[in-house]
């Protein structure tokens, strides 16, 4: 990259441009550039190829240090899906349902967004396409009530995996963040160990605000993982590199399109390659 044949200011500038434009943010970027600056000072044998490898390894390490298996094997496993408006929560749930159906799991979808126009209809269409059950109420109803009924029913019916859809909400809306806390408590009432996983859905086109989203959502409902959506666009989702310094959250899946099969498992090497491509 850059076509430079030595580790010099031109190389540092090229790297900085790549990382910033990938949304890694100025701080994470300067940390990474500083890393190779000091390596270059230590050894004259440190060439551009070694510099690139050092950066990639450092990014890869950040993104993989928190990886551990998902905790969804004790039925009914409850996965709570949260995030700000329009990031792809509902669509991601449909994709996850398809994925786990293929493993033979019996799925229940929960229409926890009772507020937005067309939200319940949207998830209902997905449940029909998937041929899986859905628990829903009337628009405008209390989401906690629906979720309580759903998790209770899932346990009674022997459902393997419950995917709980929630309304989009900005992390600055404290009353809506409280509502999310209540939804989580209601799930715990039925199954104390639940939710077994809580995923924050992040849109890859999002810039530095993702850091604030993760922090505030995590304070209210402890997050266990991330899903990064819309990576089929041109955004790189580099903010997850900066996020790794603040919150140790494994990236579980990547959304790569609008179809029900457009969900990839997170593969660190491929992700890092894409970041630098």
């Amino acid at each position, binding site marked *: 990259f850059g076509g430079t044949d030595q580790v010099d200011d031109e190389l540092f500038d090229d790297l900085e*441009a790549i990382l*910033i*434009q*990938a*949304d890694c*943010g*100025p701080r994470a970027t300067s940390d990474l550039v500083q890393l190779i600056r000091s390596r270059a000072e230590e050894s004259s044998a440190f060439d551009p190829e070694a510099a690139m490898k050092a950066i990639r390894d450092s990014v890869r390490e950040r993104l993989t240090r928190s990886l551990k298996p998902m905790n969804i094997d004790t039925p009914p496993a409850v996965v709570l899906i949260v995030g*700000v*408006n*329009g*990031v*792809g929560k509902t669509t991601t749930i449909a994709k996850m349902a398809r994925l786990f159906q293929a493993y033979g799991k019996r799925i229940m979808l929960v229409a926890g967004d009772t*507020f*937005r*126009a*067309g*939200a319940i*209809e*949207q998830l*209902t*269409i*997905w449940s029909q396409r998937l041929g899986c059950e859905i628990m829903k109420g009337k628009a405008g109803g209390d989401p906690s009530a629906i979720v309580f009924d759903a998790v209770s029913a899932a346990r009674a019916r022997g459902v393997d995996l419950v995917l709980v859809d929630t309304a989009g909400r*900005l*992390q*600055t*809306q404290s009353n809506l963040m409280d509502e999310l806390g209540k939804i989580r408590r209601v799930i715990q009432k039925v199954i104390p160990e639940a939710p077994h996983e809580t995923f924050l859905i992040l*849109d890859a*086109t*999002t*810039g*530095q*605000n*993702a850091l*604030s989203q993760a922090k505030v959502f995590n304070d209210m409902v402890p997050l266990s993982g991330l899903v990064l959506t*819309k990576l*089929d*666009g*041109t*955004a790189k989702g580099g*903010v997850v590199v900066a996020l790794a310094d603040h919150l140790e959250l494994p990236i579980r899946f990547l959304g790569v399109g*609008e179809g029900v099969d457009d969900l990839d498992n997170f593969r660190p090497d491929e992700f890092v390659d894409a970041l630098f491509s």
Partner: protein
Amino acid sequence: ALSDKLRETFRKIGGYGTLTEENLQEALRDVRLALLEADVNFKVVKSFVAGVKEKALGQSVNVRLNPGQQFVGLVHDELVEIMGGQAEKIHFASQPPTVIMMCGLQGSGKTTSTGKLAKHLLAQKHRPLMVAADIKRPAAIDQLETLGKQVGVPVFSDRSSTDAVDICRRAHQLALMKDHDVVMLDTAGRLHIDDEMMTELEDVAAHVKPHEVLLVVDAMTGQDAVRVAGEFDSRLALSGIVMTKLDGDARGGAALSVRHVTGKPIKFIGVGEKLDALQPFHPQRMAGRILD
């Protein structure tokens, strides 16, 4: 906040009579960092900082202001000027109906903004018709029809059609017959790099000749805003931008990026999920927010 940081920077370098290359160096770095953290695009920041440097150099320090305050004022004014100086409105056609086409990436807030704009136009004694031209997203038509009921504006839809261009064309004809003076096309979210979907939008525009083509952009968009806006603008000739979700704490640097790359005005901002949460764009407020 940037203003505090700059005040500190200038305090360190002392009160000089003139702003010079040396004493500006750190201040310009502060500005650059603040803009990058606010999600302004890397290349746009370069160009903006160069512009500020040029204006600032040689400016003699106003004895009534400390250099830090003066510099902040200069940066702020430069931002406001780039953002368009003053708010711009919808340009209505001399011969109705005025056709407004809403477009943008998936999830940016097009459908909600269509409902909000319809409500706003209704209050201004217009007779809008909303068109459900998203035939792809599950329950997209339900969503717009529900909004239509909530604001009291009719929605044209065709659940059996798989042709967005045809839906828009027929809606346009209906508007002429039924005396609607504004037709609002809510289109499906799409990627700027999806040639088939971008061509669909060009076809819609070719058939109904919109007077306003509004790109709906999420306020939390990062570096990619330049690429997205640039592509939509080059293929469609945008007439304006709507920036949504400004009720959150995203700094909104994408506003500067989008303005820089397209030269088009931000006409409205979305400040909430409810249908009354639409405001005209104020460059001063946006500048303050980005620099904060």
